[in-house]
């Protein structure tokens, strides 16, 4: 078995930030990333990020990934990066099994940090398996990583920040976004993003959803329907919109599978997006020396993923006996920063979810 000091699973902002701190403290880090590229969600984001300037706001997503990676590059002799390496299994004794180019390998570490991010939710409606129907992530991968247009005429389902931003990116790429549909009475994402889209002439249709997709071998149109306050379809309000691309962005859910497999205590918290690990205040799961950070612990932002990653980096470095200079101050800064990021009206869901996660559990906090 291959022995490592710290293993980080996932190279998104959470994993990269944790690695940055650990390496600075002197620890040896092995990172496993299933994609051929480093950066998680960031590498697909061509827009300037909102958030605090401290966490690289106003920088375009792909550049944030580069900046986070630059912090790590200096420590090449302490850092081992495995790309196209999927962690397919994990055991409570901190053993993982990695699948890479047809080969399985086992590694054991003193501490494991799970930063696997989130996966997209799907929507069920008749014919939702027709070619031309994508998740927002797939559309971003096509356009922003490979320079391929998903289609000519599109409709977006979902007006959260991701739906709004990806619609804007489609318009930039030359796709005609005919409408954004939103089942709720109000737009879900930030209004600045909605306004950016609206001034391009893209209507945002609230209380409206997709009833069915129409097409034989690929999507040719969708039928939309209006919803009442109780989210029930209103009869005779169907409209047909001819399109060749339907993009679904109805939320993310934490990629909890590895945590569940390890036997960590999990809870279903809808405010956090689904199944999340119950954790101590040090972000340690119910299994000693297995930690989690970023979207896998609750759907949030890159800004909070970065700070959580740094926080865990600090905790784990101390656990392993590397005391970074100014440890207590840095830890305090992270906690304050997270508090600030979550204290506004848009942080309410996260605050509520975290309270639920803490409350009424048998798990003891250390």
């Amino acid at each position: 078995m291959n022995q490592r000091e710290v293993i980080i699973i996932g190279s998104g902002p959470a994993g990269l930030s944790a690695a940055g701190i650990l390496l600075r403290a002197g620890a040896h880090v092995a990172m496993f990333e299933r994609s051929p590229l480093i950066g998680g969600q960031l590498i697909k984001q061509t827009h300037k990020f909102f958030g605090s300037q401290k966490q690289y706001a106003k920088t375009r997503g792909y550049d944030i990934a580069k900046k986070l990676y630059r912090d790590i590059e200096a420590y090449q002799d302490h850092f081992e990066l495995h790309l196209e390496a999927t962690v397919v299994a994990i055991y409570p004794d901190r053993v993982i099994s990695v699948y890479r180019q047809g080969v399985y390998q086992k590694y054991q570490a003193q501490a494991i940090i799970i930063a696997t991010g989130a996966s997209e939710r799907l929507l069920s409606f008749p014919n939702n398996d027709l070619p031309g129907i994508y998740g927002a992530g797939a559309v971003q991968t096509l356009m922003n990583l490979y320079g391929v247009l998903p289609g000519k005429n599109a409709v977006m389902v979902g007006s959260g920040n991701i739906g709004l931003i990806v619609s804007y990116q489609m318009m930039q790429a030359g796709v005609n976004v005919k409408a954004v549909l939103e089942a709720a009475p109000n737009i879900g994402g930030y209004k600045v993003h909605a306004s950016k889209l609206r001034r391009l002439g893209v209507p945002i249709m609230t209380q409206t959803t997709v009833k069915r997709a129409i097409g034989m071998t690929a999507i040719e149109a969708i039928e939309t329907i209006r919803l009442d306050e109780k989210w029930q379809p209103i009869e005779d309000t169907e409209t047909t919109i001819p399109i060749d691309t339907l993009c679904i962005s109805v939320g993310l859910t934490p990629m909890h599978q590895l945590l569940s497999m390890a036997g960590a205590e999990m809870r279903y918290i809808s405010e956090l997006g689904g199944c999340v690990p119950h954790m101590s205040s040090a972000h340690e799961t119910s299994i000693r020396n297995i930690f989690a950070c970023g979207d896998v612990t609750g759907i949030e932002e890159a800004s909070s993923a970065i700070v959580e990653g740094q926080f865990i980096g600090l905790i784990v470095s101390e656990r392993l006996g590397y005391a970074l200079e100014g440890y207590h101050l840095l830890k305090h800064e992270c906690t304050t920063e997270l508090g600030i990021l979550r204290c506004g009206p848009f942080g309410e869901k996260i605050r509520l979810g975290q309270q639920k996660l803490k409350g009424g559990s048998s798990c003891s906090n250390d």
Partner: protein
Amino acid sequence: MLKRLGYPSLEQVKSCFPQQDVLLKPKAIIECYEAIPCNPCETSCPVHAITIGQDINHRPQLDVDRCTGCGMCIHSCPGLAICVVSLKQDQAIFKIPYEFLPLPHVSDVWHGVNRAGEVIAPVKILEVRSTPIQDHTHIVTVAIDQQYLYDFITIRSPHE
């Protein structure tokens, strides 16, 4: 209206503008109506004319007297919610952020567009600025009839 349609009411728009005589000099107009965790406008202003504060969820407040109209905040705002406006005779001069290709050329006449995405009047392109610090958010200066001061928000190519 903003919550359902994605654009503000005329009243909301007007609340972001100073008195018209103040606009004889260029000033930032910040249309950020919602408490969101965001602050690059504040940190990018060289003369500290924008205040958000420790809690970055607060809405940005502009000190109009301090603002020099330099335009640094325009490309720093990820929400593309800031433009710089001044009045010159019967024209309103707007510096707006623009992230589409092709870019207009100086002295082209393009469509002026309102917040709902409708074409309202022709605009004349006065300048197109794309320095590295702007990081691909181009700043286009245009002139439009002053009567559209509270309506105009962006431009669209007449060749679409």
